């Protein structure tokens, strides 16, 4: 049965503050105003070698008023929960809009902010799909489980150190705007991670092996058997690490890659997720996060990858980290195509960008990470669709003569236009004549986005599909972080450039 929104959040003066702020904004002549109240509780636990090494439990609470006034944005936020204070914040937002208008006038610009329409969603409530709110689980139980699992790894041969961490978030948002939309929402997410480290003291060599369990929009049940087999993963880590320590260094060159969902999600995030953000493609992030090679004039034309490539954006997938009922501009969560049969067919939008580029409606990608930050277009769950009749991962491997099977994410980097990327991973298995014959070390793969997706020769079936993701996607100035999921099957890529990272280091 779905949860209800916490009473402690509903007991806050949400509507009174919203009414005061929106009334003031209207009285000062705003064309549009929205009020957003947020309470976000984030807690973390860290253990080193099964001992507590740090924890935090932080609740951010406050509200923001955003206005369009005279065709210009104004934004202000506050924390004082009185109606007078909320009205004052609305006045500050209007004052910021007026300051902006002066600068815009001095620059001789005629750009005006207008928003795409959205049906009014009057008084809607939405709660994400989870069973046990991790904040209702006693700290002793959480710390105890992390310590027990750390100790299990630490007891294994060849494991010298174990780092463990757990992040948990409980997010409440209340939104009201001058059109009449009012939404109240609650989301829960968590991310457990365990890393085993092996050190060969005599040679000075060391390496690590991390769990590949993804962060999820689930509750504490994720650690007690739902959605991931932790016992199985923890059991494999020490042997995988020992094998990695003994593994030969990779020979640089071209290889066929079978990329596991535990690694491919991050490549999708960087090379498709960010590249199909329309605010980026238009230049609004040009000085910071960057732009996109997938420019707006290429919509419907750009050959993004092979014909097997079908990518969707959604804010609706169960347990997805970017899944919501309504976004931070009151737009209902949707699902749509970004890449179809290898061609760019869609973008991620917010209301302003949608209007500016002639879309009738935003697809609901506005998000602010805290009450003190302005909503910007942030990533939906961007996912690669599996081939309905596609192969299992071992059968993809079975078709490769000389290649590498890539598992787990580690290092990532991509350029400001999303062309050139380089990724490493947790484990790289050498494939010869369709069979895995041990691990390789010092591997990185480097490619240009359209070449890489163009080389995709097979997409795995639904049985290989995993929803991966991250808590820490960064964008905008002031910087904001967002959690996002990416679902994908295993997939086969032909002739990808593999680097040897010790050679890159000049050793």
């Amino acid at each position, binding site marked *: 049965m779905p949860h209800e929104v916490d009473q402690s959040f509903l007991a806050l003066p949400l509507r009174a503050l919203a009414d005061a702020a929106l009334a003031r904004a209207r009285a000062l002549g705003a064309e549009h105003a929205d009020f957003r109240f947020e309470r976000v509780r984030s807690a973390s636990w860290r253990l080193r070698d099964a001992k507590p*090494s*740090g*924890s935090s439990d932080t609740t951010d609470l406050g509200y923001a008023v955003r206005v369009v006034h005279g065709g210009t944005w104004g934004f202000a936020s506050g924390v004082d929960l009185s109606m007078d204070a909320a009205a004052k914040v609305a006045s500050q937002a209007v004052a910021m809009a007026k300051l902006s208008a002066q600068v815009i006038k001095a620059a001789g610009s005629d750009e005006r902010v207008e928003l795409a329409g959205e049906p009014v969603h009057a008084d809607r409530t939405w709660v994400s799909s989870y069973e046990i709110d991790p904040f209702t689980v006693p700290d002793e139980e959480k710390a105890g489980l992390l310590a027990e699992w750390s100790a299990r790894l630490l007891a294994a041969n060849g494991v010298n150190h174990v780092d463990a961490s757990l992040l948990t978030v409980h997010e409440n948002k209340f939104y009201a705007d001058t059109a009449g939309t009012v939404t109240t929402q609650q989301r829960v997410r968590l991310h457990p991670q365990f890393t085993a480290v092996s050190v060969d003291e005599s040679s000075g060599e060391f390496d690590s092996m991390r769990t590949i369990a993804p962060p999820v929009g689930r509750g504490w049940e994720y650690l007690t058997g739902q959605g991931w087999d932790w016992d199985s993963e923890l059991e494999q880590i020490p042997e995988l690490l020992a094998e990695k320590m003994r593994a030969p260094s990779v020979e640089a060159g071209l290889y066929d890659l079978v990329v596991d969902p535990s690694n491919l999600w991050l490549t999708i995030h960087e090379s498709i997720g960010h590249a199909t953000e329309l605010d980026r493609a238009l230049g609004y992030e040009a000085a910071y996060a960057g732009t996109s090679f997938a420019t707006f004039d290429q919509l419907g034309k750009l050959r993004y990858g092979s014909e097997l490539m079908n990518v969707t954006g959604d804010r609706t997938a169960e347990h997805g980290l970017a899944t919501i009922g309504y976004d931070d501009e009151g737009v209902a969560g949707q699902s749509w195509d970004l890449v179809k049969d290898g061609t760019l067919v869609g973008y991620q939008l917010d209301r302003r960008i949608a209007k500016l580029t002639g879309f009738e409606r935003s697809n609901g990608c506005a998000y602010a990470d805290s009450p003190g930050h302005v909503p910007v277009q942030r990533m939906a769950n961007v996912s690669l669709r599996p081939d309905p009749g596609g192969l299992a991962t071992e059968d993809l491997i079975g078709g490769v003569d000389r290649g590498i099977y890539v598992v787990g994410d580690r290092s990532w980097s991509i350029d400001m236009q999303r062309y050139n990327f*380089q990724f490493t991973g947790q484990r790289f298995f050498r494939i010869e004549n369709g069979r895995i014959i041990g691990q390789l070390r010092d591997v990185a793969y480097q490619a240009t986005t359209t070449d890489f997706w163009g080389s995709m020769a097979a997409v795995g079936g639904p049985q290989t599909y995993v929803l991966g993701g991250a808590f820490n996607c960064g964008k905008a100035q002031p910087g904001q972080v967002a959690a996002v999921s990416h679902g994908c099957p295993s997939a086969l890529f032909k002739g990808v450039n593999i680097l040897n990272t010790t050679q890159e280091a000049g050793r």
Partner: protein
Amino acid sequence: MSARSNKPHEIVERALELSRADGCVVIADEQSTANLRWAGNALTTNGVTRGRTLTVVATVGGKQGTASGVVSRAAVTADELEPLVRAAEAAARGAGPAEDAQALVAGVPESPDFKDAPAETSSAVFADFAPALGEAFARARAGGRELYGFANHELVSSYVGTSTGLRLRHDQPNGTLELNAKSPDRTRSAWAGRSTRDFKDVDPAALDAELAVRLGWAQRRIELPAGRYETLLPPTAVADLLIYQMWSASARDAAEGRTVFSKPGGGTRIGEKLTELPLTLRSDPNEPGLEASPFLLAHSSGDDQSVFDNGLPLSATEWIREGELNRLITSRHTAGLTGLPVSPAIGNIVLDGGEDKSLEEMVANTERGLLLTCLWYIREVDPATLLLTGLTRDGVYLVENGEVSGEVNNFRFNESPVSLLGRAVEAGRTEKTLPREWSDWFTRAAMPALRVPDFNMSSVSQGV
């Protein structure tokens, strides 16, 4: 709650009075911000914010050791003060013994302004800057340039009180200005950044003029392949690489054999010569223009920092002294574990000891090499060598016979800052710089430019 009790020092006192734990640290952070963002010669988003976060650290002794609990809340009201203190105490009782447990710091004199109202910024900080920015937009438009960028000003007044009697305060202003100019077709791009305490020392017109020159250099385009090139790294690029090195300079991790600063066979590389140049890498809370907190502020414990160390006085620290690795980062706890001196991280970083040469003079002394603008998307590839990857961004210029001859394509690099220090053949004059990649987290740096004879440009990036 009376209006009086909203004063941060009184909230700190009240929380300490409520504490029933063995030890208690209370940190009140009063934060205000103002920002402007622009794209294509027009303002886009903006904002002013004001907030308070109260952090309570409770420490509880037990048979097996002392545990700690940390709880932080924004916008705490009088009614929530006691629940907050109790929550921290409950967290401490629910946690196992903290391995970093130490006696709380005592005996530091009270800050003279502890009882004073917090410092605050507002949109007024841009009173002169905003009109000048508007004029820069107009000039850029007339000159065929598009300006993008961000101006941010923050002020945090931190009040720290402990059950051991500390009453400390630090005000940290933090301002950044980033200006990016592009040709309207976006095939050319140039960048300049500044860190500032108050926006009185930044001039958008001057920065725009600097960028106009660089966009001019880019009118001649030269395609170069991947490879190793003689490269001039400007101060911002050096700062970004050395900040990452500092974040990887945990004494404990090194002693455990898991970083670039680990010595094969055990121990750390302290005492080892990292560069033949007489370079000193240091931090100093009192560094002029880069002032940072003179005492330790820890809102949670981590690998190299401990909530038990809150209030610990910080002093000038040389991480590398005349080329030799001198200090790694420790808390009191990890100093004990590793047998190394207590040397916590400090909020600024300075590299000096180079020659008194400007970047322009270093360009003039270059026969053939690359001049970078800045680095981007820096991530660790291999901790064993501290190999980092990333991109060049917003202008790679070819220098021939002492002059810039044109703009080169961007590259992906794979390089280690530790290795770069060892291979650098020249360091210039140290100047204040904005570390572009890490400016969301770290803004206070002064660096020289470095000349590296063989910088590893691993592949070409088509990105602009």
